[in-house]
């Protein structure tokens, strides 16, 4: 099916929204737009970062998910306590595959679940004493932890526990940072506020801890912000930066440590991959320490080369040469990957519905493989994300904000993409509809997808999903059209 025109897309949106009650229809219509590359601001075309409608299936998470799951969780030598009932901690434990090096339970703790396991009596009498005891226990059982964070779950905010006071007291007692994070799930409309709260808590409790201390600087120090090392992403990015001559001081926060966080104010440049979840701290460091920050994109060879040159432009000729050398080194490898997979993927259409940076960042990687992204959307973006997305996407493509389960299904039925990239909640729905699918949150337990090494894996995975023989077997044998000659042969 050829790509839709602007009018056809508009008609499709209208048709899909038809089933909603009038008020809901009006509201949802504001969240869906048809891309127009000439636009500079998304403001007039799309509304974002608003409360989801009651009654629809949203794919969003909560502030706790944004803080504990995304920003604080991957920091490996810090113990993040899920303060509140046990479920939030248990069901978010180790689900994001933030890889790290270390011995879990001895010097690293990301994959473990620490929780205060609130009971009825804690809700009635308050949980501050329990929290203090818990921190003491942690310090006794896991002495190699470098710090503790208290990630509040909903009830903590509702009953008004003073976790800040406990944190201050316990921090003095154990002599390590104890960070209270007020990321109760009911705050905000999505996980996005959780990112912001987590960034603010790093700003208030961590970032200035080593101000004035000696640090051996080089002119080539950088920090990777907003790379959560999903399936090893940050490592695949890091080796490219090191190969071009930069020194990566800190990884925020995949495979990162507290010491790296505290040393970040000494870097020359902050490299921001996930803009949505870490721009806050980048802006703070720019103001307080005068560190410039840039966004980069390590998905697909075209964007990687672009980003490497952009990063190098902040440094001297040595780094610029380094960037060219890295690009030159990997170009033949990448050309081989493209030569292998492009013929198998050429012209295929993709629809995305993810969060954070991927709805716009992976477009270039798909284009490198000759594929076309016909629809994209974010779970929890703000308008600045959509401003950036408009430029990446083709004209008259569909962009949806906080799409509901129903809308996604209808769009897929109408647009008939060859591949969908979204999360686990959508995966089996679309599998049952007979559409190839890749999870773009966790790379479907594969990865890394960042960097040159990641692109080879990305291309292979997309080919595996799309050209899997199982998609030809969807029609059951009794419904299959058999031709006459075969029947004759059987007779």
């Amino acid at each position, binding site marked *: 099916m050829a790509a839709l025109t602007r009018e056809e897309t508009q008609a499709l949106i209208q048709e899909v929204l038809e089933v909603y009650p009038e008020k809901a229809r009006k509201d949802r219509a504001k969240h869906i737009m048809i891309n127009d590359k000439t636009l*500079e*601001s998304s*403001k007039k075309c799309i509304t974002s*970062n608003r409360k989801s409608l009651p009654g629809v299936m949203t794919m969003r998470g909560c502030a706790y998910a944004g803080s504990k799951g995304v920003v604080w969780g991957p920091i490996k030598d810090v113990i993040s306590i899920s303060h509140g009932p046990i479920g939030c901690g248990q069901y978010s434990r180790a689900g994001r595959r933030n890889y790290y090096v270390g011995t879990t339970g001895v010097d690293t703790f990301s994959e473990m679940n620490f929780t205060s396991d609130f009971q009825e009596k804690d809700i009635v009498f308050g949980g501050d004493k329990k929290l203090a005891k818990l921190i003491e226990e942690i310090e006794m059982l896991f002495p190699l932890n470098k710090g503790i964070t208290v990630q509040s779950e909903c009830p903590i905010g509702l009953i008004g526990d003073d976790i800040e006071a406990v944190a201050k007291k316990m921090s003095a007692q154990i002599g390590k940072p104890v960070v209270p994070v007020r990321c109760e799930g009911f705050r905000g409309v999505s996980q996005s506020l959780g990112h*912001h709260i987590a960034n603010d808590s790093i700003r208030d409790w961590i970032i200035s801890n080593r101000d004035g201390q000696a640090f051996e600087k080089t002119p080539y120090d950088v920090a990777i912000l907003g790379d959560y090392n999903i399936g090893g992403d940050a490592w695949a990015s890091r080796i490219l930066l090191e190969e071009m001559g930069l020194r990566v001081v800190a990884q925020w926060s995949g495979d990162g440590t507290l010491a790296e966080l505290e040393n970040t104010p000494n870097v020359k440049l902050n490299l921001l991959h996930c803009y949505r979840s870490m721009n*806050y701290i980048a*802006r703070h460091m*720019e*103001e307080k320490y*005068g560190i410039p920050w840039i966004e980069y994109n390590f998905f697909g060879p075209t964007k990687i080369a672009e980003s490497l040159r952009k990063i190098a432009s902040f440094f001297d000729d040595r780094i610029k040469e380094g960037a060219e050398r890295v690009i030159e080194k990997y170009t033949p490898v990448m050309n081989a990957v493209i030569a292998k997979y492009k013929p198998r993927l050429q012209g295929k259409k993709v629809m995305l519905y993810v969060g954070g940076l991927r709805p716009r960042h992976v477009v270039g990687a798909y284009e490198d493989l000759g594929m076309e992204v016909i629809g994209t959307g974010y779970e929890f973006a*703000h*308008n*600045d994300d959509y*401003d950036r997305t408009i430029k990446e996407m083709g004209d008259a493509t569909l962009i949806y904000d906080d799409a509901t389960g129903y809308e996604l299904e209808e769009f897929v039925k109408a647009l008939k993409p060859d591949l969908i990239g979204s999360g686990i909640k959508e995966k089996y729905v679309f599998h049952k509809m007979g559409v190839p699918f890749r999870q773009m949150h966790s790379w479907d337990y594969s990865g890394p997808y960042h960097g040159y090494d990641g692109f080879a894996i990305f291309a292979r995975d997309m080919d595996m999903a799309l050209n899997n023989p199982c998609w030809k077997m969807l029609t059951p044998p009794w419904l299959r059209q058999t031709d006459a000659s075969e029947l004759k042969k059987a007779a």
Partner: protein
Amino acid sequence: MANIMIRKGSEGYVFYMPKRDIEDPIVFLEFDSPEKWGGEIRLKNGGVYYIEPQPAPTRLPFSVRARRIDGVE
């Protein structure tokens, strides 16, 4: 009143309001001299804000409190 951050972009000042995640170029700044800086600011998206006139900040980005006068949020 809201906290905003003003930083230097590739073409002039850029306005950023963390609370609402509004980032937009400033097209008009009433006073822009070392002694007197601030006043009314107009954004590209149509927003109009007001900063109490003050000596210009020595370093950008600079956080300051601003009042919204007009325009969409």
